[in-house]
C-alpha cells in the first residue's frame, strides 16, 4: 500500500490570494541571526518552462519553484520536480529581485534534487550580487527543534515560515512521485510543520543560525502543516555527484524489501535482524541468483542488516545502491531453515521511465521501454516503445493505437532504440506511405496501419 496522496509542491498557476492585514508597525520579537539574514540573500525563485510530449504533440508548461544558491560560482540546488531535463528555459529571480538565466547541471529524481548553474557571464556583466548558503549537519537535528522554511510559494518572493522538526526520519517511497519518476527509495525525509505551500519546492529548510538542513520538497495537500524535506546530508552528497557527473550512478539487484516487524517469531529470527524480501523483479540479478519473495536478507557484504521497521529500509537500499555497478555483492539469505551466501553482480539502476519523444506527423507520443519497465510489466525484452499519448484525429489515433500500447515492430522491423522509430517517422514525414505497426496491449498482439 502506498501512503496517501502526496502532492508535489510546484505551483502551476499563481493564486493571487492576499489577505490585507493592518499595517501597524511592530517591533520584532527577537533579532534574526546574521546567518539567517545572509541565508535570505541566497534563496531564489525559479521559473521553468518545460516541454511535454504526452498528448501526441509538443506542449510547453510553465511552473515555479524555489532554490538556494550554494556557491559563489552560481550553483543552485532545487528539486528534481522543479527543474528536469525537459526544461527548455530556466529563469532565476535572485533575492534582490534581479532576473538571470540558468542551465541544468544535473538531476536525480530518486532524491528529488536538481542542480542549476546561473549564467555567470551575465551575472558578471551586470555586476549582480547574491549570497550563498552553507549546509548544516542534518543528522544532529532533534524533534522539536526550530526551523525556518524559506522560499517563494506561489511566486511570493522571500517568504519565510517558521516551525519545528516534527520527525527526523520519515519514510515514503513513491513509484511515480517526481513527475512520474520513482523517488524516496534511498533516503528518509525530515518532517516539519513550517508552512509549506506550492512554490516552496526546492527552497531550503534552515536552522536558527541560517544553515541549510534540508531541501523542502513536498507536503500533504489539505493537511495542516505536514511538510517534508530532503536531509542536507543526503543533499550534500548528491551535489558533489551531480557537479561531477550530471547524474547519480547507483547499483541495482532487483529486490523489493519489506519490514519484518511481527514476523520474527515465524521466521525464527532474533529481534532486529534481517529484512524481508517481499518480491524479486523477474530477470533481475537477484532473480538470476535464485532469490525469491519470502526470503530473508540477513547481511549484505557480511554487514548485518536490520529492517524491523520501514524507516530502516532506505539505508539498506542505499547501501546496496552505493556498491560499484558491476561488482559482486554477497547476500546472506535465510530461506526456510537454511542460511546461505549468494553472490549477485549488480547492474546499473535505471528508472522505469524511458526517454520520450513525439512523432508529430502521426500525432503519437512514445517512450522507450526501459529494462526496468520491461521487467515490471513482464515483457519478453526491452525492445519496443510505449505509447504515452495520441492526438485525436491524427493517423495513430485513426489507426486505433492507444496510450499504454507497446509498439514492438514497425514495418516488421524491431525497435531497439528511439532512433529507429524516429527514422521511420522522418521518412514518412517526407514521403507518407502506409506503415504497418505491431503493438501489444496487456498480452494481446495486434496490427495497425498508420496512413496519411
Amino acid at each position, binding site marked *: 500500500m502506498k501512503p496517501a496522496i502526496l502532492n508535489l509542491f510546484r505551483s502551476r498557476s499563481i493564486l493571487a490570494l492576499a489577505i490585507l492585514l493592518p499595517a501597524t508597525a511592530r517591533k520584532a520579537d527577537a533579532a534574526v541571526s546574521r546567518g539567517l539574514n545572509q541565508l535570505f540573500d541566497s534563496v531564489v525563485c525559479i521559473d521553468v518552462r518545460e516541454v511535454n510530449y504526452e498528448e501526441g504533440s509538443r506542449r510547453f508548461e510553465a511552473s515555479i519553484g524555489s532554490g538556494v544558491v550554494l556557491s559563489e560560482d552560481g550553483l543552485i540546488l532545487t528539486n528534481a520536480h522543479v527543474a528536469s531535463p525537459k526544461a527548455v528555459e530556466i529563469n532565476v529571480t535572485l533575492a534582490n529581485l534581479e532576473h538571470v538565466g540558468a542551465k541544468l547541471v544535473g538531476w536525480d529524481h530518486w532524491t528529488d534534487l536538481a542542480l542549476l548553474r546561473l549564467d555567470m557571464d551575465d551575472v558578471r556583466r551586470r555586476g549582480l550580487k547574491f549570497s550563498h548558503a552553507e549546509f548544516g549537519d542534518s543528522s544532529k537535528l532533534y524533534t522539536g527543534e526550530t526551523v525556518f522554511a524559506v522560499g517563494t510559494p506561489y511566486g511570493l518572493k522571500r517568504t519565510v515560515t517558521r516551525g519545528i522538526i516534527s520527525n527526523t526520519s520519515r519514510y515514503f517511497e513513491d513509484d511515480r512521485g517526481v513527475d512520474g519518476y520513482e523517488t524516496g527509495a534511498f533516503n528518509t525525509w525530515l518532517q516539519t510543520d513550517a508552512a509549506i505551500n506550492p512554490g516552496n519546492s526546492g527552497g531550503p529548510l534552515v536552522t536558527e543560525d541560517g544553515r541549510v538542513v534540508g531541501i523542502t520538497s513536498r507536503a500533504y495537500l489539505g493537511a495542516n502543516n505536514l511538510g517534508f524535506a530532503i536531509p542536507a546530508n543526503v543533499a550534500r552528497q548528491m551535489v558533489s555527484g551531480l557537479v561531477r557527473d550530471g547524474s547519480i550512478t547507483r547499483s541495482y539487484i532487483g529486490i*523489493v524489501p519489506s519490514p519484518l516487524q*511481527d*514476523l520474527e517469531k*515465524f*521466521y525464527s529470527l532474533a529481534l532486529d535482524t534481517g529484512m*524481508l*524480501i*517481499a*518480491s524479486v523483479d*523477474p530477470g533481475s540479478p537477484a532473480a538470476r541468483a535464485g532469490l*525469491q*519473495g*519470502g526470503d530473508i536478507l540477513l547481511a549484505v557484504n557480511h554487514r548485518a542488516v536490520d529492517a524491523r521497521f520501514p524507516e530502516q529500509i532506505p539505508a539498506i537500499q542505499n547501501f546496496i545502491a552505493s556498491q560499484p555497478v558491476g561488482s559482486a555483492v554477497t547476500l546472506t539469505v535465510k530461506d*526456510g531453515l537454511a542460511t546461505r551466501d549468494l553472490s549477485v553482480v549488480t547492474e546499473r539502476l535505471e528508472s522505469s521511465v524511458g526517454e520520450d519523444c513525439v512523432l508529430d506527423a502521426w500525432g503519437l507520443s512514445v517512450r522507450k521501454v526501459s529494462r526496468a519497465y520491461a521487467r*515490471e510489466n*513482464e515483457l519478453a525484452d526491452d525492445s519496443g516503445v510505449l505509447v504515452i499519448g495520441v492526438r485525436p484525429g491524427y493517423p495513430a489515433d485513426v*489507426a*486505433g493505437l*492507444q496510450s499504454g500500447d507497446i509498439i*514492438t515492430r514497425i514495418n*516488421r522491423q524491431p525497435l531497439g532504440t528511439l532512433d529507429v522509430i524516429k527514422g521511420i517517422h522522418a521518412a514518412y514525414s517526407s514521403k507518407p506511405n*502506409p506503415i*504497418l505497426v*505491431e503493438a*501489444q*496491449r496487456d*498480452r*494481446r*498482439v*495486434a*496490427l*495497425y*496501419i498508420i*496512413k496519411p
Partner: protein
Amino acid sequence: MLAALALFMAAGPQARSADLPSLWAARVKCVVAVEYTVETESERRSMFDYGTVVDSNGTIILPSGSVEANLPPEQLKDFKIYLPGEPAVWHGTYLGQDAFTGWHFIRAEEKLRPRLVPVTAFAARGAAPVPAIGEEVWGIGLRTKEEDFLPYLLKSELALIQSLPERTGTALQEVSGPGLPVFNRDGVLVGLALESGSQQFVEYTQMNRGGETVLLVDVEESSLFELADEALPNLGRIPASISGRPLAWLGADGLEPMDRDVANFLNLSGQSGAVVSEVLGDSPAEKAGMKGHDIIIAIDGRPLPRFRPDRVVADYIEKEIRRRRPGDLMKLTVLRGPDRIQLSAQLKDAPKLVREARREYFDGLGFTAREFVYGDAIARRLKPGGRPGVVVHFVKPNSPAAIAGLQPDDWIREIDGAPVATFAAAVEKLRAIGADPLRTECVLLVSHGGDTAVLRLKLR
C-alpha cells in the same frame, strides 16, 4: 387498400395455413422455464433460464451464457422445470455444456416427458427456410415465476442477417425469449433466439478495441436469433459427460483480428487473418511450430473468410477448433514476416480447466483453496507443469483469511513456512490447522500479482 389486398391475395396459400392461435397452442409445448440453484461456500442463489425441448427423451437446451462460466458442475443444483403458465414443479438433471455450441443440456424427469413436444416437430422437412428481410417472424416470451411463467406472443420482422460467425438474424424488435425458438408465419422453425445474443450484438457493434461493453437490451427478450439451418444439426450434441469433455485445444492464445487496412497491406484483400498473441507452452500449436505474432490466414487450405465486423474472425477460428476432436489434425497457414508457412497441429484435449480443479473449503480459516491448473501457470507467465501450490478461490468476508488480507486468486506458496508440494498435501495441512483447537495462528506465504506477502491468519 387495394394494394394491401393484392398482397394478401398473392400470399394466399401461406395465409390460409397461418392460423396463429393454433400454431401458438402447439408450439408453446416446446418451451419451458428452468430454475436451478448455484450453491457456493457462502450463499445459495436461484437462477432462471428458458429452455427449448429438442427431442422426445426430454432433452432441453439452455443458451450458452445461462450458466456462469467457471462454475464447477457440482455447484449447480436442484434443476427444476416449469411448463409455461403452470405452477407445478418438475425435476431435471444437468447433463453438461457442449463445447461447440456452448449450450447447456438438461433432461426432464420421465413423468414430464409426455407433455413436452420437441422443437424439431416444427422444423421444415429438408432445408430449414431462411427468412427474407421484412418477413414476419414470431416467438414466445415467458413471464416471471411469480406469474407462473405465463407465455406471451412476441412478433417482429426480420431486419438483417449476418455471420457472427453463426448465421444470425436481427429482428426489428424482440422476437422470442432468449434460448427459445423463432417461427415464420407458417409456424416453421427459422431460428433459436440468442440470449446475451442481444448483448453479443451490442458487443460486436458498440465495442471498440478495449472499450466497455454496453448492455442496452432487455435480457428477458431477444431480437437476435441463430438461423435454424445452422442450429438444427447441433441439437443432438448432448455432452458425453458433465464436464463437457473432450474439448479440442490448439493453444494459440489471444487471437486478434485485423482491420481492412492491415489486410490490404498484407495482400489479404477479400479474406481475413488473425494475429496469434501467444503460443502456450506444451500445446499442440507449440508442437506444430507456431510462434507468437504469427498471423493465421487459412485453415485446412481455406482462407479465413472476411467478416463484418472484423473481430468475428477470432470466434470463427475458436469454433473451427471446437468443432474438431482431440487427435484431429488441423492444417494452418500462417504468415510469419514475409513468409507463408504451412503448419499441421494435432489437437489435444484441453488441460484441466479452473472449473474442473479440485477444491476444498476450510471453514475455520474462511477460504477455499483449489488446485493450481494450467491456466494459472499461463496467467502467471510460468512454464506449465510441475508448479506446486494452491490458488485461493473464495474468501469468506470477515473470516480470519479475509482479515489477514487473503484475496481470491492469491497463490499460496508456503503454509507455516513449509512449501506447498501438492494440492492434497496442502489440503491435509490446512484441515489439520482448522481442526486444531489450540492453534492461534497460521502463516501463509502468498503471491499476488508480482508481489509476495506473508499473511498471518489469527485463529480463534
